[in-house]
């Protein structure tokens, strides 16, 4: 039995998931080039930490053909600053390229019992609607997809034909934007 619609008119049971969560507006950076990357992951994360930038999403791979690619997302309001400090601080070799894409968003499906099945379902749904996929990563119990921020509602709607939320609960949207302060709690004394 296939638990979700795969071929147009087939009527099937939806795949049950715990929920869908949309992110705030993000920007995405892609760095790629030949190895050795000389600690590209450590360098990028150090620079971003020094700017107190939270990395909302990150993927990295080093391939057998000696190339590596790092992709990560930050809050959209940090895009210009991050671009500037990365250009200044990274000193990438000329053969490396860094691209950025503004106004993306992350849709997270949780929990996943089979990430591969959810991945397949979402790709079928989004492919049919020409919704772009800019990155995907699994976490402990969820799978997150990066797409354009302005079509996040459409992207969620597209998968709702295949995914069943508990009690028909609506996808959650963020209401709070967290910043980590530099201020530390003073001792009462």
């Amino acid at each position, binding site marked *: 039995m*296939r638990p*979700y619609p795969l071929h147009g008119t087939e009527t099937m049971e939806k795949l049950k998931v715990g929920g869908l969560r949309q992110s705030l507006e993000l920007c995405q950076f*892609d760095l790629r080039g030949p190895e050795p990357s000389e*600690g590209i*992951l*450590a360098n990028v*994360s150090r620079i*971003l*930490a020094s700017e*107190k*930038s*939270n*990395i*909302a999403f*990150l*993927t*990295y*791979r*080093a*391939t*057998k053909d000696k190339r590596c*690619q790092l*992709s990560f997302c930050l809050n959209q309001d940090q895009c210009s600053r991050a671009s500037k400090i990365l250009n200044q601080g990274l000193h990438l070799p000329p053969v490396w390229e860094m691209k950025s894409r503004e106004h993306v968003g*992350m849709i*997270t499906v*949780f929990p996943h019992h*089979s*990430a*591969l*099945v959810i*991945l*397949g379902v*979402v*790709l*079928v*749904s*989004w*492919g*049919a609607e020409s919704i772009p*996929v*800019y*990155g*995907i*990563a*699994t*976490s*402990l119990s*969820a*799978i*997150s997809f990066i797409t354009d921020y302005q079509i996040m509602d459409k992207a969620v709607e597209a998968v709702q034909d295949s995914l069943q939320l508990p009690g028909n609960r609506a996808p959650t949207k963020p*209401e*709070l*934007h*967290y*910043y*980590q*302060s530099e*201020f*530390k*709690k003073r001792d009462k004394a």
Partner: protein
Amino acid sequence: METIAVYWEKPIKTYGFQTVMDLALVEFSYPLKEIASLGKILSQDALQKVKTEFIVVQEVGETISLTLCLSEKECRDFRVSVAEGPGSAPCEYTYPVGIIYFHGPHFGDRYGIADATFSTLSEGGIEIVASGCSASSVFVVLAQDDVARAENVLTHTFEVAK
């Protein structure tokens, strides 16, 4: 609405490190315009029971590259299924690899977690094969022989909550 939060520990607390060994890292590319076909391949009945701890997908020009970790047996099933798809590049395999993963309080909302992880591994001379961080989790794929050493150095950077 904006909320300013103060959350900082030194060392950073985690709920503990988990490792998975004897995995194969599978990588393949697929045309971006054919992602619906890729979705159908991944949704096949034959792959319904395939469990994977780690998936990352990256956009590479006109293709997407999919990287995942599977057990040796599941790797064979996966290879057969993907080979039947239109336009897919041959899978590449790296074996054996291991995963170390961990999560912690508010990891998704705080800066400095990736820095603490990747700087520690870099200073330890440990080469990262692949990584994926989202929500509150950090997943790192390493050559299997490096996993125990990675856990050791990370234990000195992070504090496992009791």
